[in-house]
């Protein structure tokens, strides 16, 4: 006998080639637990194109189609329409792409797929940089982070632009379901996917997925950092269902963002003032989110 809080069924096999402690891998494990066997994935160039292993290896028990970096949105649109023509409407079609593939190069294909309102899931696993090609900055890299293209150093060339908010861009498409999630809260993540599954139309879920290799943190801290991202309001968890916001977790006494930053080498260079600036931005963003929740819930 055993009491589990997430589904027992496993669709991700061991022996995959992700780095040790990879958050993106945990994200995939939960997504498939939530959606089950009747799922087809489309994955563009990203770490997850490498994690299943070199041909002829496979690490997943569901069909997976590799696609070009910029076209995940187009790919899932086509798969969905073809399945519908075949009468296979009960199959989940899932685009599973990195933040570079979503926030930057795949944004127009994603936007078009959402606007056409295909009945698909689009999962953005957000490790906040182009990891597969060696940690280059993306639109989703947060302010202050070191990457190989924002190297810091004496000239302080860390990233000086704020993180692009893709979930909000998706809300602006008026799609029925948008949510954020992260791997430290698997029950929340799985509940969100299951709620999304009940909705016909485009669904977008952004999963914050720590990356020990790119964030320069110890691999045993992946889940802890994911949890701290929520407890510090660095990455708030919320849902937007038909335009109505609902914040999933409201930390009673949010921790200072420093606790999240200090575990990661990518933020090591930051001064006290720079950390204070990040804290200020987080506080403002959090207030804005709560305001959106209040306003959208009012009739």
């Amino acid at each position, binding site marked *: *006998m*055993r*009491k*589990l*809080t*997430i589904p027992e069924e*496993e669709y*991700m*096999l*061991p*022996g*995959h*080639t*992700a780095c*040790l*402690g*990879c*958050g993106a*891998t*945990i994200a995939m*494990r939960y997504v498939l637990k939530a959606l089950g066997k009747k799922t087809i994935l489309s994955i563009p160039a990203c770490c997850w194109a490498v994690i*299943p*292993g070199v*041909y*002829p*290896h*496979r*690490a997943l028990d569901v069909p997976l189609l590799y696609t070009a970096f910029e076209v995940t949105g187009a790919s899932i649109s086509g798969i969905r329409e073809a399945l519908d023509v075949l009468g296979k409407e009960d199959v989940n079609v899932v685009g599973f792409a990195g933040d570079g593939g979503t926030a930057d190069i795949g944004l127009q294909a994603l936007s078009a797929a959402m606007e056409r309102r295909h009945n698909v899931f689009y999962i953005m696993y957000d490790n906040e940089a182009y990891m597969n090609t060696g940690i280059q900055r993306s639109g989703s890299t947060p302010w202050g982070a070191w990457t190989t293209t924002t190297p810091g150093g004496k000239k302080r060339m860390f990233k000086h632009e704020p993180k692009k908010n893709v979930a909000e861009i998706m809300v602006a498409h008026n799609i029925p379901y948008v949510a954020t999630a992260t*791997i430290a809260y*698997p029950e929340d993540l799985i509940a969100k996917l299951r709620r999304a599954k009940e909705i016909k139309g485009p669904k977008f879920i952004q999963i914050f997925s720590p990356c*020990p290799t790119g964030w320069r943190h*110890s*691999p*045993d*801290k*992946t*889940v*802890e950092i994911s949890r701290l991202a929520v407890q510090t309001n660095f990455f708030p968890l919320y849902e937007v269902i038909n335009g109505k916001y609902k914040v999933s977790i409201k930390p009673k006494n949010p921790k200072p963002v420093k606790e999240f930053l200090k575990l990661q080498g990518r933020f090591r260079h930051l001064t006290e003032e720079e950390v204070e600036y990040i804290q200020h931005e987080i506080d403002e963003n959090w207030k804005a989110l709560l305001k959106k929740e209040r306003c959208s819930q009012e009739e």
Partner: protein
Amino acid sequence: MPIILPEEPTPIAKVPSTENKTGGWRTFRPIIDYEKCIRCYICWKFCPDTAIDFAAPEKHPAPKDALKRFDTVEINYDYCKGCGICANECPANAIELVLEQNVGGEEE
């Protein structure tokens, strides 16, 4: 020239990744102290390598009799990469990370 089509027009990856024994990547070995393990399955929940399996309740000792009706857990060292997430998340501090070269020889 005749066009030679491949036997399989679409290459399909059929070999399960379980062929790939990633345990060889390990620097640290997580070792469960069953005298402390409260069978909460949190390690199983967070393992990125699905390298923690369930085992029959009687396979390992338990700190309390009341726990003996629950299944226990085992780490599959063929695949565990030694990330240490399980040790970091275990609420009972029942998992210790031991440098592979310091692990006693009897298990190998």
